[in-house]
């Protein structure tokens, strides 16, 4: 079959397409120039404080951030819910969809009560926010210039809420098809409170110590993707493999559902990245361009890699590549130009495809590849930001190695490392606690029967 496929005529379009990407190379230099400085562009979240804007609500900015908030919500449910839901076996389809949906419910309440306060509330020793904003006490509708000067404070809170929601949802891909429901609920609440909230404070909160290191993370590559990927790894290692892995078919039960999910992720990610400009205008636009370009390039790269290696390109591969690209461009999106985005995308597609293919060697069962896509893709993205970032694109950012500032790469690597260590260790501890209270895995009988029936007494399809 492979020999067949790779016969010259068949593979031609692939080469043609590689040529197309190669085209990008020539264009390397222009990139910086292509992007005129955008002084009027509001700075990205981390540096918002710097931007000297009068705390007057702008209707256009607010409309954009509210829409972005809705878009990011749609990334979790139905986005991740369907992307993952389609990849499991039908006996676990409903429980998988429910996990994402339920996380949206749990964290929405957790965030309003104490999550937002811990993450963005008045700093305590550069480590955590105080509980002064418990229950959104004092978080009103007038702008908070520390975070976003032209939109209501609550709009910023809502936008950040959706990030806190999607992160644990991404982890569910690692322990899919075997976790006990009660354990899942408990794990989510603890992880969000003791891992996500502090981490978000370190990186984005006023006074957060990682933020002070000067690491660039436009829309959450470390906080959201590396953290969910690493947490997923810890879960996969502790919770062990699904029964019958390597013996029974674990094929996705509904791939159109997965592609629908991937499309919605792409759609919603514009809110995730371009919305992180926290204003409508130049920066949101260049971020939008970078996001879309890297995603497309990554999907194509994964597809081509698969075409060459496996003999046939697959739909699941193309969709996974797109998600890998979205993940990788996230931290860089506000700081890089279109051509850089293509390279970041290609890197993401190839690296993540390789990671997923090598997974069996490491022997952990990252069921839906949360580690391979978010962990690897997120890490590549964070480092790539240190390579491709350019002040010509975002004056409020910094230059990367390719733009004459090698130091940035070091800072990025540092931020990655800090995140990985903290999250990995922290997640292991939380898993131990949960194991002690509810136990982690569904019983063998329940797992065989499927989580839909065993945990919820429901069937996805009748």
């Amino acid at each position, binding site marked *: 079959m492979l020999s067949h496929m790779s016969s010259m005529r068949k593979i031609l379009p692939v080469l043609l397409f590689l040529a197309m990407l190669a085209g990008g190379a020539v264009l390397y230099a222009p990139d910086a120039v292509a992007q005129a400085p955008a002084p009027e562009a509001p700075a990205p979240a981390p540096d918002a404080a710097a931007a000297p804007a009068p705390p007057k609500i702008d209707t256009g900015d607010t409309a954009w951030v509210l829409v972005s908030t809705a878009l990011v919500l749609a990334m979790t449910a139905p986005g991740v819910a369907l992307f993952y839901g389609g990849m499991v076996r039908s006996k676990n389809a409903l429980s998988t969809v429910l996990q994402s949906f339920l996380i949206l419910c749990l964290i929405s309440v957790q965030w309003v009560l104490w999550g937002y306060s811990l993450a963005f509330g008045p700093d305590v020793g550069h480590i955590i926010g105080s509980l002064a904003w418990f229950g959104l006490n004092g978080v009103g509708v007038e702008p908070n210039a520390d975070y976003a000067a032209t939109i209501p404070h609550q709009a910023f809170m809502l936008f950040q809420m959706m990030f806190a929601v999607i992160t644990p949802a991404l982890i569910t891909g690692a322990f899919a098809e075997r976790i006990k429901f009660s354990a899942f609920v408990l794990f989510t609440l603890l992880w969000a409170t003791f891992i996500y909230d502090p981490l978000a404070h370190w990186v984005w909160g006023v006074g957060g110590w990682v933020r002070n290191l000067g690491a660039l993370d436009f829309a959450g590559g470390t906080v959201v993707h590396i953290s969910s990927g690493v947490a997923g790894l810890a879960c996969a290692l502790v919770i062990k493999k699904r029964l019958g892995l*390597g*013996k*029974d*078919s*674990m*094929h996705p039960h509904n791939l159109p559902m997965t592609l629908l999910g991937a499309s919605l992720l792409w759609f919603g990610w514009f809110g995730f990245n371009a919305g992180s400009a926290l204003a409508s205008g130049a920066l949101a636009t260049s971020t939008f361009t970078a996001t879309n370009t890297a995603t497309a390039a990554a999907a194509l790269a994964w597809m081509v890699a698969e075409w060459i290696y496996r003999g046939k390109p697959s739909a699941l591969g193309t969709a996974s590549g797109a998600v890998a690209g979205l993940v990788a461009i996230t931290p860089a999106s506000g700081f890089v130009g279109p051509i850089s985005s293509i390279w970041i995308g290609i890197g993401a597609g190839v690296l993540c495809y390789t990671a997923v*293919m*090598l997974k*069996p060697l490491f022997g952990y069962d990252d069921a839906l590849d949360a580690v391979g896509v978010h962990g690897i893709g997120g890490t590549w993205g964070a480092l790539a930001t240190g390579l491709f970032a350019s002040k010509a694109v975002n004056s409020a950012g910094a230059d990367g190695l390719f733009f004459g500032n090698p130091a940035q790469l070091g800072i990025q690597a540092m931020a990655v490392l800090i995140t990985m260590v903290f999250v990995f260790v922290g997640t292991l501890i939380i898993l131990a606690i949960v194991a002690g209270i509810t136990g982690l895995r569904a019983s063998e009988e329940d797992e065989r029967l499927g989580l839909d029936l065993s945990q919820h007494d429901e069937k996805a399809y009748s």
Partner: protein
Amino acid sequence: MKMIEAIIKPFKLDEVKDALLEMGVHGMTVTEVKGFGRQKGSKETYRGSEYTTDFVPKVKIEVFVADNQVTKVVETITRTAKTGSVGDGKIFVSDLSSVVRIRTGETGESAL
């Protein structure tokens, strides 16, 4: 009368059906089944991990015919369902003591 049960490869169904029609068989009943035999399920890999499926999709054709037709029907199925590769399937023949056509109540060969 006899009951002929043939287990064949799904994509051969139309061919076999048409051939039986040709030779004057007026009816048959078809069931989708999973077969297990010498032909093993394909060795598949998904996201790097490998596994083999034991069962192969097959189609079961039941034809009830008069005794004098049996050899002809068996011969026809054998000819049309054959690909020569493992998994072509089998034909089983057994006795049938009586038949009734529900609509008319007819019994015996005329009911076929």
